[in-house]
């Protein structure tokens, strides 16, 4: 990947700020930053599935839930080393993704949406029906553990882990989009018939999209459990899934920048609206609707309109 000098400068600034962050920011802001980064990871994965591959998923919060609960239970009850808990949890979430992705090969549009809704209901029921293991509706607290000799209640550790995970997710996403896999994702969304006739195995690619995207969600789930310290089923319901979809729809479908912008705005907005609790749903929905009506292709389309394609100018 060739990087321009400007891009190198930007990346270096981000790295320096990230290293400094835990020493400079107060706890609350660091916590918010963690949430933003976690949501970015989630949004990147969801965008690959929905924005690029065109598959709607109303159960992304469930993939998060699977990982969060697996991580917590393996940590609290089985006392596995924390890294192993995390890796297993993400693996289980990916498995969940594959489970949903498999029937997805024959379903599209609203049928797929409903299938994912059914999966979500299933995970909710499972969480609530086994309160001995999952804590049921009351929720579950994540017990402290150590990683690389440092306690997981250390703010710096949490932040660095989240930041590294986010950077890694970004790296993987950039790779996907510039290699044949990303092109295949776009192809099956825009024209599955043409893609099929060019030898792209549409069903398998859909399955892959679901699995990879669920892995992202799983990573976000593990980090969420680590950072927040407490999980309950409400956090992973339909409302949550719809919220995550709004990140990418308002930010920009299929675009990395879109995922980032959408996550930042919609993570910080509810925090900003805390003061007016009664109006918060209404304001959230109105902002959502306005951005959909005036910028149906996401906020990123605003940027694209203002910055013309430099490459055309060059070749002319």
């Amino acid at each position, binding site marked *: *990947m060739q990087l321009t000098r400007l891009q190198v400068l930007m990346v270096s600034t981000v790295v320096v700020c990230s290293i400094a962050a835990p020493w400079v920011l107060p706890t609350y802001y660091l916590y918010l930053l963690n949430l933003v980064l976690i949501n970015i990871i989630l949004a990147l994965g969801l965008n690959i599935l929905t924005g690029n591959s065109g598959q709607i998923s109303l159960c992304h919060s469930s993939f998060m839930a699977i990982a969060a609960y697996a991580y917590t239970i393996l940590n609290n009850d089985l006392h596995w080393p924390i890294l192993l808990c995390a890796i297993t949890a993400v693996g289980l979430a990916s498995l969940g993704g594959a489970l949903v992705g498999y029937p997805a090969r024959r379903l599209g549009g609203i049928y797929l949406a409903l299938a994912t809704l059914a999966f979500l209901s299933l995970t909710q029921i499972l969480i609530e029906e086994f309160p001995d293991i999952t804590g049921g509706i009351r929720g579950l607290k994540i017990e402290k553990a150590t990683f690389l000799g440092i306690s997981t209640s250390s703010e710096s550790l949490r932040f660095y882990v989240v930041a590294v995970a986010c950077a890694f997710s970004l*790296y*993987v996403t*950039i*790779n*996907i989009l*510039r*290699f*044949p*896999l990303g*092109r*295949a994702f*776009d*192809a099956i969304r*825009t*024209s599955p*018939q*043409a*893609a*099929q*006739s*060019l*030898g*792209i*195995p*549409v069903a398998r690619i859909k399955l*892959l999209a679901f699995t*990879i995207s669920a892995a992202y969600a799983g990573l976000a789930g593990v980090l969420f459990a680590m950072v927040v310290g407490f999980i309950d089923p409400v956090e992973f319901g339909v409302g949550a899934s719809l919220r995550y979809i709004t990140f990418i729809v308002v930010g920009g479908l*299929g675009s990395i920048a879109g995922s980032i912008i959408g996550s930042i705005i919609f993570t910080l907005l509810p925090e900003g609206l805390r003061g007016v609790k009664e109006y918060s749903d209404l304001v959230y929905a109105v902002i959502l609707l306005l951005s959909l009506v005036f910028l149906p292709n996401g906020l990123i389309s605003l940027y694209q309109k203002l910055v013309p*394609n430099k*490459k*055309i100018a060059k*070749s002319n």
Partner: protein
Amino acid sequence: MQNNLMIKTHDLSLQFGGLQALQQISLEVPAGEFRGLIGPNGAGKTTLINCLSGAIQSSSGSIVFDNIEVTTMPPHLISHLGMSRSFQHVQLFGDRNVRDNILIGMHRQIKQSIAGQLLGLASSRRAEREAGLLADELLTRFDLKGIEHLSARQLPYGVLKRLDLARALSARPKLLLLDEPTSGMSEEEATDSISLLKELARQDGMTLIVIEHNMRIMMNLADRITVLHLGRIIAEGSPQEVTHDPAAIEAYLGEESADA
């Protein structure tokens, strides 16, 4: 003249709803031939192509492609065996630019591991670079260099058709099915396009089946022509034979005078 049949169907039929879309189509196209497929609107030409490429499952009959039975094979596997097609209503990948469209066309030729792609390993980067070079070659061949960074959605119709063709050819197929490749083109553009196509086909030993309404082009360039009407083959032969066949004249040219 090779005796090898590139594609052969036997009593291929398709029924949906109460409609008999294809009735006992028995087609034999030898390797390297330029076969024209003509017929009035609704004759079943696009449906036949859909069946051959696997997009629609036929109700009965068989399809053999390069000596392999493909009647029930899924479309992407048939594509891997070496069949490509273009679409009547151009189905390009509108979000991606011209170059990416060609690269997607080459998908089945690019072998890359998933892990390599996710992690950006050197092997994947190299494979991608090589694919890029091939794509650039194709772009030049089809006179698409210079607009390769434009999004497919922004292209004028004639260029879209050229891109569609280039994409179908990018995978070096053995058999190419084209559905009205010159619709919307001027007479000159159309003749140039199909002549270029025939030239490329001869160079690579490609077999062509082309649906066309432009009779002049068919007369001049096709080796043999099959005439479809109401789902049946009503005439078949050299362009000379077909244009003198009374059944073909009645069915097809009657429609042409209606258009004129």
